[in-house]
């Protein structure tokens, strides 16, 4: 799997590269600013790009804007956005296109390399990886939503993990329940939220996020 990294801090860029290579991924370019990222994406055609939100030269949301631009040119281009902080506003913008292949994680998540590499692979496969903090705030924002409020605590746990982009198998493992139990919860959630059930994990996540982002 071929990866492009855009991160301006040398230590982090180097650490990421080493970690990904240790897990058998191939880092084709590791760049440090927005324009270089766009060039690398065009030249390398990677399976996934890992991009820091804040990049030179403006040190604002340069990385995010570069990603949005790249995805306008190549819809569905898999991108995992990393940041020191997460904002629902940015999550919405990343998801606005309605296509998958999007990740948005706190930089802290790098500390758990297994889970992080799992998220990278998921995004590369067209899946979704939303930070638990984004989802927690999204659910807090929906606490006035009667459909969400009607869910049982267990269903809400499943909903949160599903919104993060986890598969049924991963949710089952995390909550220590069977996959069939997860499927049952999922069906109930979709019924309560009045969503069209789907076997496609990815479409399912996007539907849930779209519902919560209303």
């Amino acid at each position, binding site marked *: 799997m071929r990866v492009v990294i855009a991160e301006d801090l040398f230590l982090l860029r180097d650490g990421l590269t080493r970690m990904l290579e240790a897990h058998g991924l191939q880092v084709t370019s590791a760049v440090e600013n*927005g*324009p270089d990222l*766009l060039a690398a994406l065009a030249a390398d055609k990677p399976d996934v790009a890992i991009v820091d*939100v*804040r990049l030179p*030269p*403006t040190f*604002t*949301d*340069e990385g*995010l*804007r*570069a990603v949005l*631009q790249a995805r306008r040119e190549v819809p569905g281009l898999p991108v995992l956005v990393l940041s*020191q*902080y997460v*904002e*629902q*506003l*940015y999550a*919405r913008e990343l998801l606005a296109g309605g296509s998958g292949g999007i990740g948005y994680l706190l*930089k*802290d998540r790098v*500390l758990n390399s297994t889970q992080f590499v799992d998220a990278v692979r998921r995004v590369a496969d067209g899946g979704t990886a939303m930070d638990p903090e984004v989802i927690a*705030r999204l659910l*807090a*924002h*929906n*606490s*006035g939503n009667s459909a969400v409020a009607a869910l049982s605590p267990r269903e809400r746990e499943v909903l949160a993990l599903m919104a993060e982009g986890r598969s049924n198998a991963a949710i089952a493992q995390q909550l220590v329940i069977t996959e069939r139990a997860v499927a049952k919860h999922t069906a109930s959630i979709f019924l309560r939220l009045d969503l069209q059930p789907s076997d496609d994990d990815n479409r399912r996540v996007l539907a849930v996020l779209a519902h919560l982002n209303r």
Partner: protein
Amino acid sequence: MSDIPQEPQHPLFPALCRLGSGIVGVARWSVFGALAMVGGGSMFAAPALLVEATTPHGWGDGASGDSDHLWLALLVSLVPCLVLSARWAAGRTTWAVGPAPLLPPALLLAAVLKYGGVLPGGNHGVVWLVVPMAACTVLSTRWLAAVTRRLSAEWCGVPITVPYRPLPGSDTLPGSGSGSGSGRATGRAPGGQYLRLLWQRTGWLLFDPATWRDLLWIAANVSAPWILCLALVKILPPIDPALTWPLLLLSVLWSAPRLLPAYGLIARSLLGPTRQAELALRVNHLNRTRTDTIDTSAAELRRIERDLHDGAQARLVALGMALDAADQLIDTSPAVARAILAEAKGTSVKALAELRDLVRGIHPPVLADRGLADAVHALALDLPQRLHFDGELTGRPPAPVESAAYFAVSELLANVTKHAEAGQVWIDIAHIDGQDGGTLRIGVTDDGRGGADAARGTGLSGIERRLAAFDGVIAVSSPPGGPTIVNMEIPCVLSSPKTSSS
């Protein structure tokens, strides 16, 4: 909103509207007239009494004079009025000034009508009455001027700035904002201090040029209408007597609402601050807001220092110690070392989270990245309430304004979450072009239970102080039962948006 069908209008509707506004205009003029009469009465009663007392022959023949009763009447009316005025001057209550303007004319009337002009101690003895009457007059001018200023803003559309010097021993401006105005109770003063306060206030009252301009206004206000009427009667050509009244009525109804702004402008020329007073007020305002700003930022720095010291710094020390322990144990007992490393990882995650929160409190990253509108939007997206957001700015306000506005909204939204029990929140941000670069306007409305009061909580007054440094203002409307509507305005210029270089 355009799809709401228009109600068909009755053809008489505009005419009725015009008639209504004419009647309202006349009513407002009547109130101004009444105020002028009260002021005039209050002002001229004392001199009239003085003239009466010093002329050889009084108004009456003195036959019905009954000095015992008069003494009683004077005591009953004058003493409470003077006590209340003195209390006001000593900083206790404001409403006491209300009855003060009515007292001198009432005394004069009593002297003239009931007692035929004869007063205790003979006509010369009345001179002592002139002094308390004059005191009442001076006190009452403040009251009359304040009422006129308020009505001028409400009815004439001409807001008038309060021109007085700040109260001695207080750092608030007289009449600045609601509730924090002049004469607000400053606590109970013991005897000696009471006298000192009274003395200070009297000096403050008498030596402020604005007081004398107020008096000038009252004199002009009561005399000018008569001169104007006489002039009009002289100038206007004679009309058929049968037509006089209908014509008069029509012209009064037509002109009453139209001439109100002119009255407001005239009032402002005397009741508003002079250029010099304006500058003095400005210096005072700047002084106060500068002190506030310095205090606030010093407190903020202390908070940041404390947070870093107790939070991230302490955790990094713990992290270093854990790594050291793991280093020593890794050969002898790798299992324990691994457990310590796992704990160290947890510590680093917590330190990161604390730093993140701290940074958010200093300068939120979205604000730096995207500017005010998006930052407020991002902030509001974390609310549990249903959000209606409408805001777009064509450029960026200056960074300090942006930051102050952001934290003001943040404080307001925290209030909504904590107290309002609201289901929906509306936020709108706009920059309105105007003179001096325009105004940044932010509205935050919720459908909660209302009852927010700037005087009780520190939150709203904190915002007021924060915005005052930029000449910004905040207006809160929050009747019990809701809704709460908060509007903030900060004068500022937008810079052209940063263009992306990618």
